[in-house]
């Protein structure tokens, strides 16, 4: 073993020099991880990718210049943060290669070597005496052990025998599975940031768009297909909180519709690797108001389009109406009503009345107890779409699966070996059990006690028959 180690040292000295030594150290891992943790904090306190004006307002001009020199305003994509991630990646890679070559030899060994005296020295062992001969125990012990361990070896001693068994040699690879997965996450992220894009587009109901604005640069990007927004709908709970955002989209390629689908938050549309998400909505300032009138007397309904500041005669001679303006946030007695048209009702023989027509609450005007119940349709919406393309996502997802499997193996599985020595003393046999594992020494005593209890319960099949 010592010779082998020396050989390896020589090898690493030859190929590796100082650079190798630098990257192979766990100290570097610890330093890089802690630096990543510490620097990541900055970006959670300084808002990322905000407008330059906002930064100058908050921090002042000179700190702003220093921050922007250090890329603090987009720090997670800055050269120094990427450099730290690269350092972590190389560190993981070199460490894993360095250790793997020796671990490989341990794992893919055909006949594991085994040293009885080593087990006798272990602290985690148990001795007990059984009222049976060693030859009677041999078969049943072998059967029991082979049920729980993959590799089993049995040797006879002068007045007894010993069983050596082991399992889970391969679990030593678990940690490399975790390391590989981290490399995959970094690789996937890199591929995504080089070949992928992320952008936004607002499309008014009924309109079509093919260009999106990339985030965060704001550059124009032309898609291979056009997106038509057939409709946008938003539903609210009674409390006024939003319940559902829904966009009907049609994708048009070469002038032909190729896909029609409704998207919601959490149910995006995917086409040719490009994902389209519901991300925001809004309405462009309307040029007119589409009003509905319901007569309190007859229940008849009327519809009318009216432009701002133009007087309109109301049906059934109920007076005249002027729509003053459209507001995004109206309120009534402290309750938020959201978007609304504000209008004035004029009467021949009464004082004018100011009314609010919230588009979310069509029956709001009922409260006024007028001759007509007036409501306004919401002005056309635009749907705000997030458009992304990320060819690295499957590499990242593979990394996700591997990291979970790898952590499980690393933390909860171990390379275990078991040694049972049986020495016959007259009609009795004294049994010694010892177990080793490369992890979780804590659970070892429990394990040995359990094993001992089970072994003590075993009766050799022959003796059972004799008794019967």
């Amino acid at each position: 073993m010592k010779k082998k180690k020396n050989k390896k040292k020589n090898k690493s000295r030859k190929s590796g020099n100082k650079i190798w030594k630098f990257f192979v150290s766990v100290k570097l891992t610890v330093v890089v991880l802690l630096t990543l943790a510490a620097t990541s904090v900055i970006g959670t306190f300084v808002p990322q990718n905000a407008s330059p004006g906002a930064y100058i307002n908050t921090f002042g001009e000179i700190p702003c210049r220093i921050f922007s020199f250090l890329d603090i305003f987009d720090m997670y994509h800055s050269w120094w943060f990427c450099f730290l991630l690269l350092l972590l990646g190389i560190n993981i890679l070199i460490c894993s290669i360095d250790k793997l070559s020796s671990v490989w030899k341990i794992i893919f060994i055909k006949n594991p070597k085994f040293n009885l005296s080593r087990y006798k020295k272990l602290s985690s062992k148990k001795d007990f005496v059984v009222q049976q001969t060693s030859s009677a125990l041999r078969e049943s012990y072998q059967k029991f052990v082979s049920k729980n361990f993959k590799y089993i070896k049995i040797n006879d001693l002068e007045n007894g025998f010993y069983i050596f068994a082991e399992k889970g040699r391969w679990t030593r690879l678990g940690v490399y599975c975790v390391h590989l997965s981290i490399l995959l996450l970094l690789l996937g992220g890199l591929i995504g940031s080089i070949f992928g894009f992320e952008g936004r587009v607002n499309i008014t109901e009924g309109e079509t768009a093919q260009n999106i604005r990339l985030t965060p640069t704001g550059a124009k990007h032309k898609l291979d297909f056009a997106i038509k927004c057939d409709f946008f709908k938003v539903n609210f709970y009674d409390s006024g909180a939003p319940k559902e955002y829904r966009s009907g989209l049609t994708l048009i390629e070469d002038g032909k519709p190729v896909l029609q689908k409704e998207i919601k938050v959490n149910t995006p549309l995917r086409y040719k690797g490009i994902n389209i998400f519901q991300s925001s909505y809004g309405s462009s300032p309307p040029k007119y108001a589409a009003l509905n009138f319901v007569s309190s007397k007859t229940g008849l309904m009327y519809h009318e389009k009216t432009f701002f500041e133009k007087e309109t005669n109301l049906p059934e001679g109920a007076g005249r109406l002027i729509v003053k303006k459209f507001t995004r946030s109206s309120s009534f007695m402290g309750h938020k009503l959201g978007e609304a048209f504000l209008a004035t009702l004029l009467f021949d023989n009464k004082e004018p009345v100011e009314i609010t027509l919230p588009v979310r609450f069509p029956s709001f005007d009922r409260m006024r107890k007028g001759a007509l119940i007036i409501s306004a349709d919401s002005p056309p919406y635009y749907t705000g779409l997030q458009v992304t393309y990320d060819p690295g996502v499957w590499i990242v997802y593979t990394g996700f699966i591997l990291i979970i499997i790898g952590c499980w193996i690393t933390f909860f599985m171990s390379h275990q070996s078991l040694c049972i020595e049986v020495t016959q003393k007259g009609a009795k046999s004294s049994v010694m059990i010892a177990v080793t594992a490369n992890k979780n020494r804590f659970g070892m005593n429990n394990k040995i006690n359990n094993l001992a209890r089970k072994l003590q319960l075993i009766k050799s099949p022959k003796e059972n028959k004799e008794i019967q």
Partner: protein
Amino acid sequence: MNSSTLLSLSTFIYAFAAFFYVVALIFEKPVLLKPGKWTAIAGCIGNAAGIGLRWIESYKLGIGHAPLTNLYESLIFFALVIIILYLIVEQKYKYNMLGAFVTPLAYFAMAYASLSPNISDRIQPLIPALQSNWLIAHVVACFIGYAAFAISFGISFVYLFKKNTQDSTSFFDRLPDSAILDELNHQMIIFGFLFLTVGIITGAVWANSAWGRYWGWDPKETWSLITWFIYATLLHARMMRGWTGKRIAMLSIIGFMGVMFTYFGVNYLPGLHSYGVLEKTISP
């Protein structure tokens, strides 16, 4: 009886459990450990039933969803997971004195949820961004992780407490041996680390299906990653450089501070995750 009363009741039961455990430890009355355990179990049942009832109530209101969607609900779930995890550890390893350091945590979580004026216990309808099947997986995984780290925090505390007072009165003899505390701490940390990893991953997959990106460096995501880095450092220090005992206990306490900041502190930072502000992503 509605869920709020049931949950307030379990808060009181937890207070009693914590009281029994703490008195048993401080006044050397191991007789009280059994009642402590049974009170904790009673509180746990009440807590779980309260959550179940709240789930049913949300359906009766016509806005049915798993009660894991705001700070109040997450706190009562956090308390439940802490107690369940602790009871399992107690059952498995038989170190019941640790309850004095863990049951108060569950009590604080519950008390904070019910008493803080800033936390509403109303059942609110689910905003669109939260309407996803990933919600339950994400929240459950995160809170199992958080709870394991909370217990590890308790154990680390005990460890330092025990180390700093060297005079061996029977008081400290009653606590598990330092080596056992250290190993138990490690077990809790690896368990928590696995679930934190799963929590971050389910969150990333969810973010990718809701917003088109699996990672966006929003403060909550970043802080969960910072926490992950701290515990990853701890694991490497322990497994590769043989750190044990005091240094690991200190790192575990720092890690738990990371957890707490990820959980509460982030709400004061600008971002998408701040509980109840998630609708920011999709607002007019």
